[in-house]
């Protein structure tokens, strides 16, 4: 079978051939023609089958004609020249970058465009006189790069990128290099005439280089130490700030009194290495966002019906402006943004997003529809019952759990050890100063400061950032994307894992069925295939593709009863396929009501039913088996109990299961577990888990396509790596033991240094060697050992 020249999908029987190239659909062919006509076929040379099959509904972007909404989306606007940034999830290869940066060849009026690949964004500057915002969006959609515009875009302020860490690192590195270079002559302490002559200017130059290091680059440590002290916590930044200030004051005193060269080199080196650790820990996945709420899912505008007595018109209106009682039109695949009552049309609402229920529900006119449901099928008309912010789904976000910072109460390993460390360093410093006071008072101050300098816990402060930063990268390569490094420490402490069912441990595709009832004859199967093929209902489609019949019989008369089933007539035989009530009056077997099933009858004789099963992800049994040793496992599902028995067979005994849990219930459930002192990890997938994800100690989202948005969480795991789930938890605990080992290693360096310090022999050159040496060996140790423990992840 051939693959589409544009998108690479398999071509079916009804594929097209154009210019001797196969295309899977006319959409792909059209994109190819557009590129070909505009001399942009280089697109196909850059990568094989780079394209995305375009799927658009032109009416979807009508709201961009509304000037007020359009204005909010623009980044810059001076009347004619406008600049806008789009998030385009389908950006995936170098061809995408090339075509999007050559938009100006395709469309007059586009002045320039620039792609930010990691963020999957394109920034387009265009001339409003030649092309409107709407036609620009439509152009992008037509070539397969549909921008993602949601309610979030409407509110987002100009994001300020915080680059202060790079500046601070740059300043510290710059000063470190220059000070090293200036202090080099004095390392050898040659009492040479010329050196003696110039050493003052060298020293004062070093002093001036160290000023920005202490007061700018190091400022974070002082602020954090101050905050810690104020709330009576001895965090790791306290001894660091102490070390930095003692280094600076003692060095300045030395050069003023002309007693020595000071420790400016060690000072700037220390700050530089510390910031380097911070920079390393700070790995971000630009294309993912861990802070999403309902706004990234909700549409920016809806179609409102305006009835001014004489004529009825449709208008595009911003969703926040929709009032109670307004009539709204919802089209196929559109989300219902507020609680509403169905007025007209056939509604099939997919609530999987909100409740986790897999099956779409049919609604009749007069039924209540909840926000967050997605309409499948035709156009419906609804009347808003509430405003957006007061609706069922959106109210979840008014829970205070979304406002508090999750990590505020968390005490990291480093800060824990720092408490004991600071106390013992201070006592060593005071004790040795007291000793020298008695023995040789002139050296007492010298020794006191030397102890504080050498004990500055540079290596301890580096151990966690480098270990966790490394693990973060390794996890990222294995498709577990964590929000920040400290999440790993939290994961290591978990004792309870709560799983959502639908979409988390099951796949989103329903692809296994079983048949219950009287056996169907070959002829009946052929007829069944023919009838199913004629139907557009998702269940018919799914069943048809699973049955995979070679020969089918097309019915003579075919009729579809919406919400009930299909009836097909073959002359002598009549087939009814659909819901139990529609097909026949046979009593339905116990339990099947809760499952998704399709019933069949032939000539009004009930035959049996096909039952769909959610298929479980590969490795679910294994993951649960491995986790059940040492961790409490819980299933928390928004779905009904239909799958309970199967789950009990599949999962290890002792796995608690709770069904029919609404989003708010899940949140409360996690809260109760935590009140019992459990450290809870929540594993979920949809918005219905959002509360539980936010409440839990660690919230992980399983995602089949990481470009599709996931609710706010601490980490996103690609579904294909689900079978390694337990490995990630195991690695996190191992990472913590690496940090413990590094602490021991760096403490031994500190003891060695203390030997120099308490005896009053700390030379600047010793400090200058010992400090970077300890830091570098910690970095090497953590890097190699994390690589070592992670090697298991790859081979298995």
């Amino acid at each position: 079978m051939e693959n589409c020249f544009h998108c690479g999908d398999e071509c079916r029987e009804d594929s097209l051939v154009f210019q001797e190239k196969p295309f899977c659909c006319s959409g792909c062919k059209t994109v190819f023609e557009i590129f070909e006509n505009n001399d942009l076929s280089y697109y196909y040379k850059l990568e094989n089958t780079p394209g995305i099959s375009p799927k658009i509904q032109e009416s979807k972007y009508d709201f961009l004609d509304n000037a007020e909404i359009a204005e909010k989306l623009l980044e810059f606007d001076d009347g004619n020249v406008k600049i806008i940034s789009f998030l385009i999830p389908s950006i995936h290869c170098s061809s995408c970058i090339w075509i999007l940066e050559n938009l100006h060849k395709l469309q007059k009026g586009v002045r320039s465009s620039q792609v930010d690949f990691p963020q999957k964004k394109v920034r387009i500057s265009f001339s409003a006189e030649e092309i409107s915002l709407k036609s620009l969006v439509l152009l992008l959609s037509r070539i397969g790069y549909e921008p993602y515009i949601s309610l979030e875009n409407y509110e987002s302020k100009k994001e300020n990128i915080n680059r202060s860490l790079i500046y601070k690192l740059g300043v510290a590195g710059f000063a470190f290099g220059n000070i090293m270079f200036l202090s080099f002559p004095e390392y050898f302490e040659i009492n040479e005439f010329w050196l003696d002559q110039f050493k003052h200017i060298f020293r004062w130059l070093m002093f001036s280089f160290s000023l920005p290091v202490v007061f700018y680059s190091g400022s974070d440590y002082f602020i954090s130490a101050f905050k810690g002290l104020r709330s009576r916590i001895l965090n790791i930044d306290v001894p660091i700030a102490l070390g930095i200030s003692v280094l600076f004051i003692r060095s300045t005193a030395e050069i003023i009194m002309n007693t020595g060269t000071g420790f400016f080199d060690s000072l700037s080196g220390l700050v530089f290495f510390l910031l380097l650790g911070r920079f390393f820990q700070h790995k971000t996945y630009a294309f993912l966002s861990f802070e999403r709420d309902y706004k990234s899912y909700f549409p920016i505008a809806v179609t409102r019906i305006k009835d001014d007595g004489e004529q009825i018109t449709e208008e595009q209106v911003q969703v926040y402006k929709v009032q109670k009682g307004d009539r709204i039109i919802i089209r196929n695949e559109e989300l219902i943004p507020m609680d509403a009552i169905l007025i007209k049309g056939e509604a099939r609402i997919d609530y999987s997003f909100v409740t986790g229920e897999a099956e779409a529900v049919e609604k009749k006119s007069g039924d209540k529809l909840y926000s967050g449901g997605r309409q499948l099928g035709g156009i419906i008309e609804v009347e808003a019952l509430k405003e957006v912010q007061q609706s069922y789904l959106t109210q979840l976000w008014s829970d205070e759990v979304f406002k508090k910072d999750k990590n505020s109460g968390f005490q990291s390993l480093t800060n824990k050890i720092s408490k004991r460390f600071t106390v013992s360093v201070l006592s060593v410093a005071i004790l040795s100063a007291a000793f020298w006071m008695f023995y040789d008072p002139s050296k007492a101050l010298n020794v006191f400061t030397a102890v504080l300098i050498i004990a500055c816990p540079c290596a301890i402060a580096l151990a966690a950032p480098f270990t966790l930063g490394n693990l973060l990268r390794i996890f990222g390569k294995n498709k577990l994307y964590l929000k920040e490094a400290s999440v790993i420490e939290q994961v290591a402490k978990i004792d309870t894992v709560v799983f959502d069912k639908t979409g988390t441990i099951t796949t989103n595709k329903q692809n296994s069925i079983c048949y219950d009832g009287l056996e169907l004859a070959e002829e009946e199967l052929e007829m069944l295939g023919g009838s199913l093929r004629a139907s557009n209902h998702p269940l018919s489609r799914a069943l048809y593709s699973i049955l995979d019949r070679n020969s089918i019989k097309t019915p003579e008369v075919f009729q579809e009863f919406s919400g009930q089933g299909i009836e097909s007539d073959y002359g002598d035989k009549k087939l009814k396929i659909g819901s139990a009530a529609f097909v026949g009056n046979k009593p339905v077997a116990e339990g099947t009501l809760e499952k998704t099933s399709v019933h069949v009858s032939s000539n009004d004789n009930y035959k049996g039913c096909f039952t769909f099963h959610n298929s479980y992800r590969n490795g679910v049994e294994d993951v649960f088996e491995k986790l059940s040793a040492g961790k409490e496992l819980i299933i928390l599902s928004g779905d009904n109990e239909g799958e309970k028995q199967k789950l009990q067979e599949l999962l290890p005994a002792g796995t608690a299961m709770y069904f029919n849990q609404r989003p708010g219930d899940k949140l409360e459930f996690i809260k109760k577990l935590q009140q019992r002192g459990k450290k809870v990890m929540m594993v979920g997938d949809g918005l219905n888990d959002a509360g539980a994800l936010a409440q839990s100690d660690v919230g992980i989202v399983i995602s089949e396509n990481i470009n599709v948005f996931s609710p706010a969480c601490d980490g996103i795991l690609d579904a294909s790596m689900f079978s390694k789930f337990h490995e990630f938890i195991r690695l996190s605990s191992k990472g913590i033991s690496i940090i413990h080992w590094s602490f021991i290693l760096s403490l031994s360096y500190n003891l060695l240094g203390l030997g120099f310090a308490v005896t009053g022999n700390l030379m600047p050159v010793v400090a200058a060697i010992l400090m970077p040496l300890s830091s570098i060996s910690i970095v090497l140790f953590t890097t190699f050992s994390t690589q070592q423990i992670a090697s298991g992840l790859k081979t298995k």
Partner: protein
Amino acid sequence: MSIIYMLLAVSVVVALIFFVAFILSVKDGQYDDVYTPSVRMLFEDELVKPDSEKESSVNKVKSN
């Protein structure tokens, strides 16, 4: 030997020039996206068509 003042001044000034260049490049956003430029530089330069032909092809798109 007072030439050393001169040399020191020159070395510090040179270092400062590079430092300022670094700060400006960060401010400019050069470090915000460090991936895309590495791809972009590999694109080949294409042949430029005469303007008249370009016009007509743009019109073709519009009719699509």
